[in-house]
């Protein structure tokens, strides 16, 4: 019986790896069918990321918000909640960090930069807390409320920019350099990519999630409530409070993702009529990363690598960039369906035990 369990655990680890391989293979088949050379295409992705500093830099740059968004989703997952609102939390975080940077522009960098980052996290926290509160107090399902909060975020940020922080080009003014995460040093190192110091924030966040969930009493409580609200209740924990706390912390990760875009990549925020997509990709990253911090980091690296390295596919192999999105979708499809396989397997082994 213990043997069987071990096998299932191995399976769990193998699933994402197998899914990635299957996704890449299916992508290759699609390329072959259309008449492209998949070897050339994949070769150009790998070569561009690892041998061309610009694409390497852009990959890491795109990883930053993706990993943070993935952490946000994974964190809520770990506590039994499904936060679809990362996108909205990211947008309010983005705007809050930019607004803070602009309105407190007179402060020195040592104050302004941390303050702006905190502002982003705090705005995300608020945006996460509201659905948490609604769930804890009125049993509103978090999937519904977080989706709604996304739309509120999309149009509220647009309204705020238009009325209070508007400048030419349908966007906010550029933030003062005292609030910027951009680094000429990193840019030079990567031949002009937009790589910025936000990568440090992302890595700290990876560590923070691990520490919080597995090393602290609060994390123990959050995981316990996530696994079994009933048993946690019987053990004297407050399920309602943990739900609110979980979505709030998840919102912080998401808000930070937005702050990284605002203070790092773009240095401003545009009025957008559509979602950034980073929040939704975060769900995929969390799924592929098995909701573990390190897994999220790796999955984020893979997706941003495919997306950025994929840009060179067109030039080198004539393969349209859109194919990368198909591959990513395939990987997610396989992760999803192997969950079904694993579920069937575990059902099976549970029956066998009896």
């Amino acid at each position, binding site marked *: 019986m213990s043997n069987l369990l071990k096998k299932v655990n191995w399976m769990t680890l193998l699933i994402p790896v197998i899914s990635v391989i299957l996704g890449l293979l299916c992508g290759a088949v699609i390329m072959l069918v259309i008449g492209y050379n998949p070897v050339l295409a994949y070769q150009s992705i790998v070569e561009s990321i690892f041998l061309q500093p610009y694409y390497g830099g852009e990959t890491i740059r795109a990883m930053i918000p993706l990993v943070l968004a993935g952490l946000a989703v994974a964190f809520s997952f770990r506590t039994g909640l499904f936060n679809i609102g990362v996108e909205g939390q990211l947008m309010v975080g983005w705007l809050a960090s930019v607004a803070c940077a602009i309105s407190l522009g007179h402060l020195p960098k040592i104050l302004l930069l941390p303050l702006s980052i905190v502002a982003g996290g705090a705005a995300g926290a608020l945006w996460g807390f509201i659905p948490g509160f609604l769930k804890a107090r009125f049993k509103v399902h978090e999937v519904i409320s977080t989706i709604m909060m996304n739309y509120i975020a999309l149009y509220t940020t647009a309204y705020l920019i238009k009325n209070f922080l508007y400048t030419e080009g349908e966007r906010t003014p550029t933030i003062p350099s005292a609030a910027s995460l951009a680094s000429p040093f990193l840019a030079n190192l990567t031949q002009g990519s937009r790589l910025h110091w936000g990568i440090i924030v992302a890595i700290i966040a990876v560590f923070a999630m691990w520490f919080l969930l597995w090393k602290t009493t609060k994390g123990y*409580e959050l995981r316990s409530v996530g696994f*079994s609200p*009933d048993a946690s209740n*019987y*053990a004297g924990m407050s399920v309602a409070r943990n739900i609110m706390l979980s979505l709030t912390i998840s919102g912080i990760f998401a808000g930070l993702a937005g702050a990284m875009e605002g203070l790092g990549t773009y240095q401003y925020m545009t009025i957008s009529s559509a979602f950034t997509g980073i929040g939704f990709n975060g769900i995929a990253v969390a799924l592929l990363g098995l909701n573990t911090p390190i897994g999220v980091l790796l999955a984020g690296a893979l997706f941003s690598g495919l997306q950025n390295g994929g840009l060179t596919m067109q030039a080198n192999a004539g393969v349209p960039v859109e194919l990368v999105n198909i591959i990513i979708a395939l990987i997610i499809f396989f992760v999803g369906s192997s969950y079904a396989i694993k579920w069937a397997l575990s059902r099976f082994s549970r029956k066998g035990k*009896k």
Partner: protein
Amino acid sequence: MSYAIEMRQIRKEFPGIVANDNITLQVEDGEIHALFGENGAGKSTLMNVLFGLYQPDRGEIYVHGEKAVIHDPNDATRLGIGMVHQHFMLIDKFTVAENIVLGREPKKNGVLDMKEAVKVVRELSEKYGLDVDPEKKVEEITVGMQQRVEILKTLYRGSDILIFDEPTAVLTPIEIQELIEIMKRLVHEGKSIILITHKLKEIFECCDRATVIRRGKNIDTVKISDTNPTELASMMVGRKVHVQVNDAPYNPQGKVLEIEHLNVADARKVEVIKDLNLTVHGGEILGIAGVDGNGQTELIEAIAGLRKTKSGTIKLNNQDVTNQRTRKMIEAGLGYIPEDRQKHGLVLDFSIAENMVLQTYYQKPYAQMGILQNKVIAKKAKKLIQEFDVRTPSEKTHARALSGGNQQKVIVAREVDRSPQLLIAAQPTRGLDVGAIEFIHGKLIEEKKKGKAVLLVSFELDEILHLSDRIAVIYEGYIIDIVSPKETNENELGLLMAGRKKGGSEA
């Protein structure tokens, strides 16, 4: 002489475990044959082989002396083997008759003939003394009735060998008696019965012979009239069993729990606890007897702060704790072994170590400044695992991977180790085998000896009678009477549980 069923040298392996190791089972015509063993001994596997759900790796099956190959349950049915499953396979929205004929419906001109179905079911139920109304919907009848429907299903399909898979697990004491009568009647009518069980009492009440298996191996087949409960129990667990009896002198001390005029409503706002008064002293085990659904669950939840009371007071150690939060209650000295151990007692996806500190994880020494002290927790868990004999590879094993008995030991270890002033034990031994029951009963008596108050809620009258110093019978949300176990018997308790007080007056 040929047997109704003969299974010779059956071997069935699962990855990493031999569930049946050359087991031989011989069931005579017209007998009730017990298949007796601990949880996980391989009883269900063997019966699943007989019923065609598993294929044996080796061994032969003979039905009425003829060699049989049983590929699937349809083969088994054809051979006259019927199974009454522990978890009923009934459709709630269908009537009793519809459920029974399902798959073999009587037809008239190609159309379902429901009248005929009802008639056939009625005839069958009269013949075997199985009192059910064929036209009632399954969701409207009691669990005991539902079980009769399951029995009728097998009879309708012409079975003459019936397998009962732990049939009494879901029944009340009265229903158990009725079931035993039914089984005797079935045998009288020429059927043969295999009774899977780990309860000694049932075996001695109705079985002719018993085959004992332990860890997948045949131990022995004995005639019930030639053996006794202690011997059979020792055979099952493989060592001597001491039936734990509460023999410590009864020295009640101060009042630990005092409940006065308590009223509690359930989720539908129906009052399920009505003006209930109860006191539990230190140094006593107070047993609450009653039929399931008479307010036991709500009473315990109200004490534990899991359910709001409507009126009345609950005092713990002379402190008013009515409607306190659960955590405050735990800190004030409440220990709780919940009825549903998997849902309420454990976080199944947590390790044993994590489960051991489910209420105390935030306290020193398990945490310092909000940081878990995993080494301290692991050390504590190892100690408790040893002390309470939890069979597990390590303290890192998930609670889900443990057997029911070991899961319960984890909960008991956790609750007893906190040394609470009041220990509530709700159905602490439900579904456990003799060895684990013995152990847990011993622990409850130990707590009493230490001067703690123990509130025991159980549907098993034996358990209540063995362990309690006083027995409070709960009926429709209030305590109908409090009796001493030395001055009462199962009959009297049964009447009280049905709402009839001494002197014959209906309450």
